């Protein structure tokens, strides 16, 4: 009985839907504010994302005639479900996540791809040429960053010798952060660049390039369904950041300052915010690449970084 209650609380409140949504919306609000300041604007208040999503949720629900299909409606919900599930698998308060699985890294890698796949399906089913073009670009982009992302993770896995995220976090608590290991540094850089592609941030916002293909797969979405997409994207942002934090940056650590016990969740929030702000900085100092240029960039420079790291981990003891 207790277990069921715990599970429901875990998936709906902390660290599930409610917590993930609040932090996701807040962090994107911070991202927008920081972007504004980088661009010499005042920018919206940091709770603007709450207002935007709230407004979208209260709008009329319109489905274009060409997009009348269950796939079109299900896509954002499945995407949101997938990223919230990843929240349950991430170490947030301590090395132990809300849901423990054997080899949870593989599950996380799969789940992190679901939003991308949902977006492609949503784009193809929307019946708009922009949606189809965006989905087509997304397929190419997925093939660009995903391999590198997995390679970088494998490098860390080989270093620690475990497929379990809690074990990796525990290892780092004793041996120091993996990012401080010179053999893994190239993999960390590659993973961060791949995350930029995963989160569709400049220079890799190609699938939803606003000036080229309107909003790509999201062109035909409006109202509550668009709100769910926004929410899924915002949660995905902290999930990816949190995943990288756990994998390379030591994960949540509880501190004792004076006599006050600082819970691990604070550390989690600080580390994810730092990673989100890094992606914010990157997206504000570059122009968008073309899809072929992005593909080439990933498969040459970034792949090289990840492979070097993997070889170093395997060869150098």
């Amino acid at each position, binding site marked *: 009985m207790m277990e069921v209650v715990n599970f429901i609380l875990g998936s709906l409140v902390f660290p599930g839907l409610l917590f993930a949504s609040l932090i996701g919306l807040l962090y994107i609000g911070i991202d927008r504010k920081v972007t504004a300041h980088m661009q010499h604007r005042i920018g919206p208040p940091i709770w603007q994302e709450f207002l935007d999503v709230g407004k979208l949720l209260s709008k009329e629900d319109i489905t274009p005639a060409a997009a009348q299909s269950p796939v079109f409606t299900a896509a954002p919900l499945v995407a949101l479900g997938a990223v919230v599930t990843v929240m349950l698998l991430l170490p947030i308060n301590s090395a132990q996540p809300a849901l423990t699985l054997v080899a949870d890294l593989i599950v996380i890698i799969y789940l992190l791809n679901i939003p991308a796949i949902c977006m492609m399906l949503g784009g193809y089913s929307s019946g708009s040429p922009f949606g189809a*073009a965006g989905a087509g670009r997304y397929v190419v982009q997925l093939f660009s960053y995903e391999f590198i992302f997995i390679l970088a993770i494998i490098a860390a896995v080989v270093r620690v010798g475990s497929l379990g995220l809690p074990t990796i976090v525990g290892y780092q608590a004793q041996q120091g952060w993996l990012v401080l290991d010179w053999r893994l540094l190239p993999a960390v850089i590659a993973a961060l660049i791949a995350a930029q592609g995963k989160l569709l941030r*400049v220079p890799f916002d190609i699938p939803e390039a606003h*000036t080229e*293909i309107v909003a790509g797969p999201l062109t035909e979405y409006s109202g509550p369904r668009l709100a769910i997409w926004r929410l899924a994207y915002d949660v995905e942002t902290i999930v990816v950041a949190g995943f990288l934090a756990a994998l390379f940056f030591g994960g949540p650590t509880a501190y004792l300052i004076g006599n006050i016990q600082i819970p691990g969740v604070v550390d989690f929030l600080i580390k994810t915010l730092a990673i989100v702000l890094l992606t914010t900085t990157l997206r504000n100092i*570059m122009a968008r690449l*073309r899809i072929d240029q992005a593909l080439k960039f990933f498969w040459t420079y970034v792949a090289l970084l990840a492979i070097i790291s993997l070889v170093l981990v395997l060869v150098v003891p």
Partner: protein
Amino acid sequence: MTFVVPIGPQHPALKEPEYFRFEVKGEEIVDFDVRLGYVHRGIERALQERSYLHNIYLSERICGICNVAHTTAYCQTIEQLAGIEVPDRARFIRTILCELERIHSHMLWAGIAAHEIGFDTLFMLFWRDRELVLDLKEMISGNRQTSASNTLGGVRRDVKPEYVPKILRTLEKLEKATEQYINICTSDRTILARCAGIGVLPKDDAKKLCAVGPTTRASGVDIDIRRDDPYDAYGQISFDVITEPDGDVLAKVIVRLREILESIHITRQAVKALPKGPLRAKITPKIEPNEAIGRVEAPRGELLYYAISNGTDKPERVRVRTPTYANIPSFKPMFVGGTVAEIPIVLASIDPCFACTDRVALVDSHTGKTRVLSFKELRRWKG
């Protein structure tokens, strides 16, 4: 198999309504069509139904961005018709306003171009610095945008001596900023990746298709009305005509940014050499039968006004040929063979102004459906 990518009439890459139809094979563009006429206002006909004085304000409203160029060209043409000389001081003030407008227009364009390639930070920075020019325009003419400063026989507002230090200070700031932007645009890897080598307009095509302005100067064609057919004070001022040989989008960016520097240089000379004297000459409301042509180098290129008078206070005919209209045939060689991702930036690269292009006369306010304009015939000249 090819499919059609529609751009417009409403599309985030277009700031004005116009319809472009791209036939694409995968990501490659194989054919290109355009529909014109979404912003028809019948201005050419309206110009011949109103008095010469009234027409200043109508011509000013042909284009929001290059309004000074339009009124300068219009007033110049009517002054030639009536055979009156504009006082020196007015000619210098017109030059100053024209150049400030060029700076602001190029900055506006550069911002939009940065936005088209997804570089929003640069977009905001360009527009921040554009505000400096708008402040100057507001100080001189009382308006940020539509200056309403030119009138038949001269100008309506003076550049007061106390304005001069402020103008020079702002120009200094702008010059530094522009030099930095040129530096960014020629060195940033992502900008180079998106702009270099795409949307190329070969020199031959530019000449054959009678392209004008920065579009053709970026293809290495050395034309500039300010030098070739000097008006206002340009004959008394030294400046260079900026050309770049490559013809790609990057060349168009560099030409425009370097033109900003040149405009700053011109404005500085004009402000310093501002002669004393009256602001306007008298003009009679009725003009004897005559014909005249006025040409101005607007920010987007050669702007031509051709007017015929018939002895009344209304013109017999005023023909307006705007720069974007002349540049539209050049789209074809720039697009075909490119990719879909290039469309927005190449479209933006001629700095299109569709309100200008569509000014041609319609008698009523009828808009709505127009025919597809085929560019098939233009492919024949594609090198």
